[in-house]
């Protein structure tokens, strides 16, 4: 029998036309709203997450667009000061908690983790679905606060402003973030248990792909950092809504305590955003350099070290907040230490590229962009970890540029890189490679044009969070806003051509990149049960060319085009 190729995203996975007697793909295994909203399949939950974080990404992006438009000129043109405050708060809250934190772990991680370890699903499939609902519920509360009138505290909710003075919908927003925190915890519990208990036979810890290690360390931080955020927000909620004296200095409270608790979560949260990105990049660079990862064990230890040391450094956000100078010195020192494992990772990626057969497919372009942007963001982090420099640039655009290099330049590049790399596996379709390469390059240039001028403006003294500024900073702001326009196009392009590929893209082969991971040893897209038979693992990850071995030239690189076989 040969059914016609259906023109719907789920129909494209209909394997009837092949008539090989294989089970249907996870996309074809059940239709209708219920089969998605009540699914316990980790792959479908990944898709649910992908849909919601995409919506939040463009919501947060819209707020950023308005901010950059306003900053095009030194005067107030389109929004008032109050609206401006609400816009950057919305941008921060949405991007941090509803896009970046769940981005790679909950979409790519959810989809790939069981596949990479040869499991049928995560350890607690129902909890996985609950986590998505918690995320959506929290997001809806935050969006409701936005529709009701917005919040002007900034994403950090600093007390006593947020608890005593602000007139916005702080409590509702805080409740939304609180709720979504439990989604993170649920995901963390699930991933840790999955990696410990459900690895395929033969898959020992030091045979795990680095992406799995990244998910493991990220989950560790989910579980151990997020509850402290929950308490912090609960205290803000209690002080604001019930008038309990907790942080208000007028009633004997200590606002610095709030900052300790907040940054105990929010600094590790930066590593929650970057560790998964590092995992993705390790997969991409090895595949497209056709090289084993340089220093696998060091890469593992570096991930673990970042996850642990990342918990010791939060005080560097508080150098100018009235923290004691002794504590500031300790935190400064600890912050320098965390740069060491990060540097190890950059060196090892570079070492992997050395003498590799580097190909420049679109995922690799994103990966190479990541390495550059992460290095720049990381190095400027050292400026900020050193107290004298930090006192000078605290609360300027230097800080804004620094953390955008890490959180947007690095993490979002990695997310897009991973999305392109695994797109054929997830959807069963190839995207137009030329468009993808163009978008990747455009994103790199747009990003640098947006944020590099902010380093300079910040170093020259332009403070953050103001909608008007002295005219001498205009040149940097015009550059930055122009870059933002380029960046917006670069972010919208994948939305277009990836959607196009769902309908018209070439069908993907099982392993279009000739990659070595276990997730490629099944059909594209995979069946509900992930594998045909039970996988067994007989060797380490990245079985590409080892160090010191010449590339095999009689095996031509397989082009990235798909075919039906």
């Amino acid at each position, binding site marked *: 029998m040969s059914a016609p190729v259906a023109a719907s995203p789920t129909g494209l996975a209909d394997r009837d036309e092949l008539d090989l007697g294989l089970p249907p793909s996870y996309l074809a295994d059940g239709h209708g709203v219920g089969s998605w909203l009540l699914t316990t399949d980790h792959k479908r939950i990944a898709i649910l997450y992908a849909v919601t974080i995409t919506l939040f990404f463009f919501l947060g992006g819209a707020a950023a667009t308005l901010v950059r438009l306003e900053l095009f000129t030194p005067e107030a043109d389109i929004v008032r000061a109050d609206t401006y405050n609400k816009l950057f708060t919305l941008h921060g809250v949405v991007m941090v908690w509803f896009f970046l934190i769940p981005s790679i772990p909950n979409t790519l991680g959810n989809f790939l983790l069981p596949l990479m370890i040869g499991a049928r699903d995560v350890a607690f499939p129902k909890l996985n679905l609950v986590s998505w609902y918690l995320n959506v519920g929290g997001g809806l509360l935050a969006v409701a606060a936005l529709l009701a009138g917005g919040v002007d505290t900034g994403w950090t909710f600093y007390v006593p402003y947020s608890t005593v003075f602000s007139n916005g919908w702080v409590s509702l927003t805080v409740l939304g973030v609180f709720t979504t925190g439990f989604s993170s915890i649920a995901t963390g*519990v699930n991933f840790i248990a999955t990696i410990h208990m*459900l690895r395929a036979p033969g898959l020992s810890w030091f045979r795990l792909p680095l992406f799995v290690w990244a998910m493991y360390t990220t989950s560790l931080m989910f579980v*151990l950092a997020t509850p402290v955020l929950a308490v*912090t927000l609960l*205290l803000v909620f209690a002080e604001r809504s019930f008038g309990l*004296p*907790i942080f208000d200095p007028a009633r*004997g409270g200590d606002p610095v305590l709030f900052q300790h608790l907040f940054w105990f979560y929010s600094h590790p949260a930066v590593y929650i955003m970057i560790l998964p990105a590092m995992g993705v990049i390790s997969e991409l660079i090895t595949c497209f350099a056709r090289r084993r990862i340089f220093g696998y064990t060091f890469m593992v230890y570096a991930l673990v070290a970042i996850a642990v040391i990342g918990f010791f450094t939060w005080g560097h956000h508080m150098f100018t907040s009235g923290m004691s100078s002794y504590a500031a010195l300790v935190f400064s020192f600890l912050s320098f230490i965390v740069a060491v494992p990060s540097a190890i990772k950059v060196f090892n990626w570079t070492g992997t590229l050395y003498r590799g057969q580097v190909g420049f497919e679109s995922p690799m372009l994103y990966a190479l962009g990541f390495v550059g942007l992460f290095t720049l963001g990381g190095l400027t982090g050292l400026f900020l970890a050193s107290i004298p420099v930090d006192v000078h640039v605290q609360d300027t655009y230097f800080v804004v540029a620094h953390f955008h290099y890490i959180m947007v330049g690095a993490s979002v590049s990695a997310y897009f890189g991973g999305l392109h790399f695994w797109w054929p596996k997830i959807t069963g379709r190839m995207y137009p490679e030329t468009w993808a390469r163009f978008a990747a390059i455009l994103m790199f240039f747009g990003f640098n044009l947006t944020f590099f001028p902010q380093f300079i403006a910040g170093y020259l003294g332009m403070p953050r969070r103001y909608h008007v500024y002295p005219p001498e900073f205009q040149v940097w702001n015009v550059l930055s806003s122009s870059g933002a326009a380029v960046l917006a196009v670069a972010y919208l392009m994948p939305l277009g051509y990836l959607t196009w590929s769902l309908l018209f893209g070439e069908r993907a082969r099982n392993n279009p990149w000739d990659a070595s991971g276990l997730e490629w040893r099944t059909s594209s897209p995979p069946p509900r049960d992930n594998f045909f038979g039970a996988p067994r693992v007989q060797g380490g990850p990245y079985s590409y060319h080892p160090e010191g071995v010449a590339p095999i030239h009689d095996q031509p690189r397989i082009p990235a085009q798909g075919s039906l076989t």
Partner: protein
Amino acid sequence: MSGAPGEAGAAAHLREPWSELETGPAAAFARQRDGATFGIWIFLASEVLFFAALFLIYTAYRIANPEAFAAAGRATNIVYGTLNTAILLTSSLTMAMAAQGAEKGLFRRLTLGCLAATAALGLAFLVVKGFEYREDIEKHLVPGAHFALRQAPAQIFFGFYWLVTVVHAIHLGIGIGLVTRLLVKGWRDPDVLTENPQVEVTALYWHLVDLVWVFLYPMLYLPGRAG
């Protein structure tokens, strides 16, 4: 009932994705149980951080305001506090008995009875707490304009008191719900609790809620008694 350990439980409770493991059902079920126990312990570690953050707030303020915290601690009702501690510790005993009974799968009546006792003790705690709250309100121990104690930081103590006891009561309420759920299931179907990992998971959560109170007792009720 007296088959090889794990077989009856595996038949009743083995779930995806554990059922796909390449082992016999008994071994797969043992792994599922281990996974459930491990999973709840990870969550408990998370809860430890949750309450640690609250306790840290208390510690920092108590170090800064020892006199006011002593005065405020004296104002709490140690009789209610001690009684409630005893109630919760006893409920942990019955919960542990229920879990150990269900683990063997041998003593259905013991398990059900202990689960019922646990839920009842939890409710008793909430009732006592309700009486205590009423007394606290009558004695103007709610932070605000009519607060009873002179020292300003005593208000912070009671801000913490109300927050942390309510958060604890919510945790306990969830625990009572979980225990009741097991009780109803076990009542309807005699075999459902046998070797069911959910009993162990519920028990571990219950004990944690108890442990939180064990530390709240010296924090809230014991300061300043000597003065």
